[in-house]
């Protein structure tokens, strides 16, 4: 479904609700990778509350779309969503980063219902997404569905829709890792058109601007040269995000993995976090940002 005013409104209210969860989580932990969580939040909202095929509260539904959060330090954004869609109890917001709690410091699939990938060591997520996408291709080949599911991906180009799609969310700093490009080659080789990578291009990593730390320009051209379909978007324009996800989806069957480069702002929406391009906020930095956020979003 393409973007329309009503949908945008609905997603905005989800955005605010998820943000409240995140503030509560940060109130308790006073520590979080807030800059990268805020920069990708619009994308996460578009995915979880509109685009993904999910079946809450069955977080282990075999046909669910898989989400690999390769930039797994920004798990607090997803945690806040998982509470909102009912995979995880609201109580868990109080235990972020704590011993034996559902919300571990980095994404952990055994600790958190609804996480498909245990991450934290950057550069591995796209490879994991490759494996999931490859598994989908193999499963569909070994056990082809007897009939097409009409309401999901009615395509003409292929005999069958994918049983599930795999989405991978990468950071731009993370793309310094050589393994990302090993994975990019693999996805092209095996024509993983059921794989959609989204780069949260917020232009800053821990030590400073990503272009100073390790220049990656021309970035979109790199992905294209590796055989990917590429589209650059404004990662804070909900209509553009939704329409691009749909566009990528409708290209299924073209044999190309998809890369959406989302230009974003680190710490987006919270003035003090935007200003400092905050990577990891702790203590007062969290308190100030959360107070600003509550003033803006109620």
């Amino acid at each position, binding site marked *: 479904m393409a973007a329309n005013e009503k949908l945008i409104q609905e997603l905005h209210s989800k955005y605010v609700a998820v943000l409240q969860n995140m503030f509560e989580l940060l109130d308790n932990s006073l520590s979080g990778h807030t800059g990268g969580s805020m920069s990708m939040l619009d994308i996460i909202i578009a995915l979880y509350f509109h685009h993904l095929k999910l079946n809450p509260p069955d977080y282990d539904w075999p046909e669910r779309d898989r989400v690999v959060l390769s930039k797994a330090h920004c798990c607090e954004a997803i945690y806040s969503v998982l509470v909102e869609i009912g995979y995880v109890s609201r109580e868990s917001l109080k235990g972020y980063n704590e011993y034996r709690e559902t919300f571990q410091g980095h994404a952990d699939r055994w600790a958190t219902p609804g996480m498909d990938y*245990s991450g934290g*060591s950057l550069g591995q997520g796209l*490879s*994991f997404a490759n494996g999931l996408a490859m598994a989908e291709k*193999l*499963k569909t080949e070994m056990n082809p569905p007897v009939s097409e599911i009409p309401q999901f991906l009615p395509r003409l180009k292929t005999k069958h829709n994918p049983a599930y799609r795999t989405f991978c969310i990468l950071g731009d700093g993370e793309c310094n890792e050589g393994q990302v490009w090993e994975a990019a080659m693999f996805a092209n080789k095996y024509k993983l058109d059921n794989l959609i990578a989204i780069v949260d291009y917020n232009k800053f990593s821990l030590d400073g601007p990503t272009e100073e730390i390790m220049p990656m320009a021309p970035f979109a051209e790199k992905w294209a040269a590796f055989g990917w379909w590429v589209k650059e978007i404004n990662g804070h324009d909900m209509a553009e995000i939704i329409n691009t996800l749909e566009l990528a989806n409708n290209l299924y069957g073209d044999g190309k993995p998809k890369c959406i480069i989302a230009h974003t702002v680190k710490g987006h929406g919270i003035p003090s976090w935007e200003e400092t391009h905050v990577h990891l906020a702790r203590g007062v930095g969290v308190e100030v940002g959360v107070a600003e956020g509550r003033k803006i979003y109620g």
Partner: protein
Amino acid sequence: MGKYNQYVQIGEPEAPNAGFDPAMIEIAEKNEKVLLVLEDMGGPGLKWFTENAPNRIIECGVAEANAAVICGALASEGFIPVVHSFDFALLARAYNQIRQSILVDRFNVKLVGRGGAWGDTGISHNYVETLGFMRCLPNLIILSVADAVEAKKAFTAMMQYVGPVLIRQEAGPVPPRIYTEDYPFQLGKAYFIKEGRDATIIATGLMVGIAVKAEEILEKEGLDVGILDISTLKPLDEEAIIKASVETGAIVTAENGITIGGLGEGVAAVLCENAPCSMVLFGVQDEFSQSGRDSDDRGKLAMHFALTPEDLAVSVREAIAKKK
């Protein structure tokens, strides 16, 4: 049966690796979930896969980090990926990936690693340090095989077990066949090839064959030396190790790698806590390997590292002499 225990019959030289292919093919024929993941370095049963199930070969090229994580993801979806390469590429290059994307989640991935002191491939490929950096990883079972019979049985057991396993594949002196076809291999269990009274050699992989020869030398001197085959390097069969210590009071561990973090230190830790005794750690000292085309156990590399049966016999005498 003679001096050896049941299921042991010392036979003609035969490369242990000969056991991997038939085991892999037998399982792959029955279970379509078994995948062969390649790192441009071949793999067990490759010919069979090429001819019978090419769609179950996933060639990742020379990109081991990517391959390791893909294995984890495939296992998370119910497949059983088997991936093979030299230790330096499969394990050392992709160490962090194996830890984070296979072991942390206990994914059912099977690693076949080539290493050890011997080989004509030189210092880059002859990994003597593998056990030191792999034994410390939680959730991983490590297997090492003494002959082709054990290789086939261990490989089969590895595939039947649900969880991550590393099986070692060594080049070097071709050992004699040690076991009979009906040898009942068990994951996590060491096997006494022979019990002794004066000392026990606790050996793994290719060193088991060398231990058999060392025992023959010592037997002629009137010494009764036992041999314990450690086919599961992790977790160690503590019961068998303690039994060997209690019954003989002198232990020599034998491995074709560095003893730091290897079998020697593993056995020493078990015995320190449970049944201390006279001990000698036999293996490579703190040194990298190099090229050597040894196909028998008295070749140049074996002489260089002092890994011959005669050297092992010297260590056994030393352990016996140290006994109180």
